[in-house]
């Protein structure tokens, strides 16, 4: 088709669904024949509104669907900060706010919805907000800095999410709900009560069955204040004093453009569209929250995505239709799992209900079952929604219930639904329409793990509620094919590292021999021996070179130094927080000079000396120890460094003493043997010069204390650390960190950094928060005590080594010629320092040395001694 015959699609609104329409159009090839112009009112390209609340943690960039600001396909033009104020279906034009007129061949409305603000007097006051855009959240955060108390009006799904955010921002939070229970749309009365109790336990105040009559300004009208001061409820005398208000009383489709243009609207609002999402004008389409297929609007993203696909297909002449959607939801509100699916309220004729409730544990579950007891119609889960991933597809696929359906909700149910096999066509991921069959096909195509399946199929990548189910299906499928997902440590131990850790702890084992004799086979290997060494070190904190266990130590631990490619070693003294005196620098310089070592500043804010011969290590360390240095454990799977920025001591932006805290933390956790190495960082303010969020634990100073982030990683698979808890006092910070680190030490797999460990936990970061902060397992004091034991029994490994002739015995080049340096180690020079030289052949000293002689000369035993 020649260029002037290309058609033009104009998309109004660049939100989640507008963006999906564009990507669908590109993928399906619509841009081969059509130019697309997207006009969006917001100042930035589309972003993940579903994850809006995480804006406080991750920032706008991380939420963006189009960080570069433009689509790669040059035939798509995106204009942000551009509002459409009028559409003219007869002329096929749209009018922009600046007066520009634009013609279209096809018009796609994706204008979304707007929060509904009821006409309450005072709603126009300052510090009254809605919760929909990044700008809304920025304003809320600003107000929260000075606000003491705040109210969220509306106790629905979004209201609770907003309340969660206010609570996290440190504002005393009230939830005001007109109905007698929270989340009345999704869950039933008993579930709502259970949820209310959970939320009250967290320190939020829930007011149900109250109607807000008016909002009054701060300190009365006399001060002329224009910001919120209090809420007045109908039939309640005492007003509720608040400094900010967030309205979350429902949403309304943004259908004003269509209304003004005379297009048909649905009775309850929204652009009325047919099954192909076409409006009453053949060239105008509507998708997402502004659309009302068959008269019904959907306030969820998944149906919007389906509509976007249907329209892209229709514009290419396809016949796809949108015929309704699954309104199931699962979310985690203030740490409480809540899910509802299918016919949650039991409105189907003659249906049966099966409930399980445990007020102590705060768990409530209800299943709605067909009259004949064979089909699952819907349900509600509060407090434990682990079964959601299985139950929702059971409803959607209409499969037969097992004999004892109550087992699906009894507490011992794993959520994996042990044994229950969904039919292949059952939709497992509703956000991305992925079935069990699709997941298994992805495995057939070579995916090796649930994470790879998510990458290939998108299942689990949107709201995440199907993740557990995806993982279960992948693992079951592996098992079915005989490809067992083997979690054994190695051929000698058929358990995971975490299981082995518990076994060692329970039996109080002290040596490898005891452990392998009782629980393993053979004599171990390079996988299980270092793992056992690490477990014993974490529990007993003995010397890693103690006679009974030194045979277990990995390469670097075996000589308390890092092995280099030519067989020499590097030496890294600890420099806590990166702070060092001039005298300290001079000692390191002199030692390096005297032993001819290469020096380099490391990425971990300290100094590494390379090229030490094994037999020289004790003498080098003697000098360092005498000068007050100690081991930096650069060789151990243990704490490495706690990187710091200069902080409030010097920096004009700093709000806390980051160096002081880094030194304290590094000193506290030094020597802690762990499943993999551990790194920390402390920054003095949000500018984050210490890159703390790239570390296993990162601390960022705030005006009120410290924010604690966990699970960051550089290395091969970089990850940003996530906020575990905010505005902590130093004491709280240390308590949570003690627990976090010990929980990791106990349960992670060998060589699993914190980032992958957190991902591997069922519930991820939320689980960590439950265990570390909420102490749901009641392990808090035990973990703290374990850390206290570690810090009390810490000693410097190198100091202990140079004082013990038995340990020093091993630091020789040759057992029978300790004074002969290994000729295989040699050095060249580059930029004025030594560099290793690696030969392709072993070097022989031949006859030139006194010990041992060439074969032909036959030495006597006497001579060779």
């Amino acid at each position: 088709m020649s260029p002037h015959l290309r058609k033009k699609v104009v998309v109004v609104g660049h939100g989640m669904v507008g963006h999906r329409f564009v990507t669908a159009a590109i993928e399906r090839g619509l841009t081969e024949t059509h130019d697309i112009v997207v006009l969006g009112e917001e100042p930035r390209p589309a972003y993940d509104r579903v994850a809006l609340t995480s804006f406080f943690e991750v920032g706008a960039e991380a939420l963006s669907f189009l960080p570069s600001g433009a689509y790669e396909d040059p035939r798509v033009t995106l204009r942000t900060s551009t509002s459409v104020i009028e559409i003219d279906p007869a002329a096929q034009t749209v009018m922009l706010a600046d007066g520009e007129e634009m013609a279209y061949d096809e018009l796609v409305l994706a204008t979304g919805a707007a929060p509904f603000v009821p006409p309450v007097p005072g709603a126009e006051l300052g510090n009254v907000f809605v919760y929909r855009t990044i700008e809304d959240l920025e304003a809320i955060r600003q107000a929260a800095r000075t606000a003491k108390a705040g109210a969220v009006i509306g106790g629905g799904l979004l209201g609770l999410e907003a309340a969660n955010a206010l609570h996290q921002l440190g504002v005393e939070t009230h939830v005001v709900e007109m109905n007698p229970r929270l989340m009345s749309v999704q869950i039933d009365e008993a579930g709502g009560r259970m949820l209310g109790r959970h939320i009250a336990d967290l320190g939020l105040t829930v007011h149900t069955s109250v109607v807000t009559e008016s909002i009054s300004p701060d300190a009365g009208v006399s001060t002329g204040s224009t910001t919120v001061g209090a809420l007045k409820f109908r039939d309640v005398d005492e007003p509720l004093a608040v400094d900010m208000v967030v309205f979350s009383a429902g949403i309304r489709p943004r259908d004003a453009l269509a209304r003004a243009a005379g297009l048909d609207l649905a009775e309850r609002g929204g652009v009325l569209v047919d099954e192909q999402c076409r409006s009453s004008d053949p060239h105008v389409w509507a998708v997402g929250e502004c659309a009302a297929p068959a008269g019904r609007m959907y306030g969820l993203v998944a149906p919007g995505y389906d509509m976007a696909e249907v329209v892209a297909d229709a514009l290419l002449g396809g016949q796809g239709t949108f015929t309704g959607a699954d309104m199931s939801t699962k979310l985690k509100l203030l740490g409480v799992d809540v899910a509802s699916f299918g016919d949650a309220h039991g409105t189907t004729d003659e249906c049966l209900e099966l409930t399980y409730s445990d007020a102590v544990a705060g768990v409530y579950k209800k299943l709605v079952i067909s009259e004949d007891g064979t089909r699952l119609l819907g349900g509600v889960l509060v407090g434990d929604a682990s079964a959601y991933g299985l139950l929702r597809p059971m409803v959607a696929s209409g499969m037969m219930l097992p004999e004892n359906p109550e087992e699906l909700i009894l507490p011992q149910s794993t959520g994996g639904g042990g044994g229950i096999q969904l039919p292949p066509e059952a939709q497992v991921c509703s956000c991305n329409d992925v079935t069990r069959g699709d997941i298994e096909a992805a495995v057939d195509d070579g995916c090796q793990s649930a994470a790879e399946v998510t990458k290939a199929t998108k299942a689990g990548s949107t709201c995440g509620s199907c993740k557990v189910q995806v993982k279960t299906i992948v693992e079951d499928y592996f098992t079915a094919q005989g490809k067992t997902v083997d979690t054994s440590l190695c051929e000698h131990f058929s358990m995971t590292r975490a299981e082995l850790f518990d076994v060692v702890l329970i039996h109080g084992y002290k040596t490898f021999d005891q452990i392998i004799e009782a629980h393993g086979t053979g004599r171990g290997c390079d996988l299980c021996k270092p793992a056992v060494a690490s477990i014993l070190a974490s529990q007993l904190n003995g010397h890693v070179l103690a006679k009974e266990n030194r045979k277990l130590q990995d390469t670097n631990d075996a000589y308390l130094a890092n092995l280099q490619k030519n067989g020499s070693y590097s030496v890294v003294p600890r420099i806590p927080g990166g702070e060092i005196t001039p005298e300290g620098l001079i000692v390191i310089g002199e030692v390096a000079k005297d032993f001819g070592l290469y020096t380099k500043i490391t990425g971990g804010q300290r100094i590494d000396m390379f090229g030490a011969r094994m037999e020289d290590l004790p003498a080098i360390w003697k000098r360092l120890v005498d000068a007050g240095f100690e081991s930096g454990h650069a060789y151990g799977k243990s704490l490495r460094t706690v990187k710091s920025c200069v902080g409030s001591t010097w920096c004009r932006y700093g709000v806390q003493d980051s160096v002081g805290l880094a030194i304290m933390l590094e000193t506290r956790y030094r020597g802690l043997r762990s499943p993999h190495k551990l790194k920390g960082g402390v920054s003095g303010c949000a500018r984050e010069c210490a890159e703390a969020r790239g570390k296993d634990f990162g601390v960022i100073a705030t005006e009120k204390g410290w924010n604690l982030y966990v699970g960051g990683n550089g290395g091969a698979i970089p990850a940003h650390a996530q906020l575990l808890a905010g505005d902590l006092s130093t004491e709280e910070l240390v308590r949570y960190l003690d627990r976090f680190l010990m929980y990791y030490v106990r349960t992670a797999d060998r060589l699993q950094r914190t980032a992958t460990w957190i991902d591997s936990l069922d519930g991820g970061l939320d689980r960590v928060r439950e265990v570390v902060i909420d102490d749901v397992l009641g392990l808090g004091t035990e973990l703290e005590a374990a850390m206290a034991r570690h810090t009390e029994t810490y000693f410097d490994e190198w100091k202990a080594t140079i004082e013990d002739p038995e340990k020093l015995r091993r630091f020789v080049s040759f057992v029978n010629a300790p004074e002969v340096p290994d000729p295989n180690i040699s050095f060249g020079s580059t930029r004025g320092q030594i560099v290793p030289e690696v030969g392709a052949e072993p070097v022989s000293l031949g006859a030139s040395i006194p010990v041992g002689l060439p074969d032909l000369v036959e030495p006597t035993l006497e001579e060779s001694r």
Partner: protein
Amino acid sequence: MNAAQTVTYISVCRLDDIDPETGVAALVRGEAVAVFRTVDDRVFALSNYDPFGHASVLARGIVGTRGEVPFVASPLLKQPFALETGICLDDPSISVATYDVDVVDGEVRIGARRPH
């Protein structure tokens, strides 16, 4: 054992100088030899030179078993070598030299390099 054999053996250390399931490096006729002791007090001698990493380090590796086969994992990149044959268990086309070795009166003695 006849006299001619005895003299070709070089004593390098006492058995007690080697912790069970570890190795030591010895200098034998100018060559670096890794001498290992297993848990049942058998001794094995291999060239100390790791042909993958090109460094003389095998004596510092972890000793263990694969099935019934005792082996040492190179401390550099963990390739496993059978202690009896010197053959790399992951890549049998590569092997390291082995030496005759025995223990007499608690003395560990290294004999000739075996042909391979």
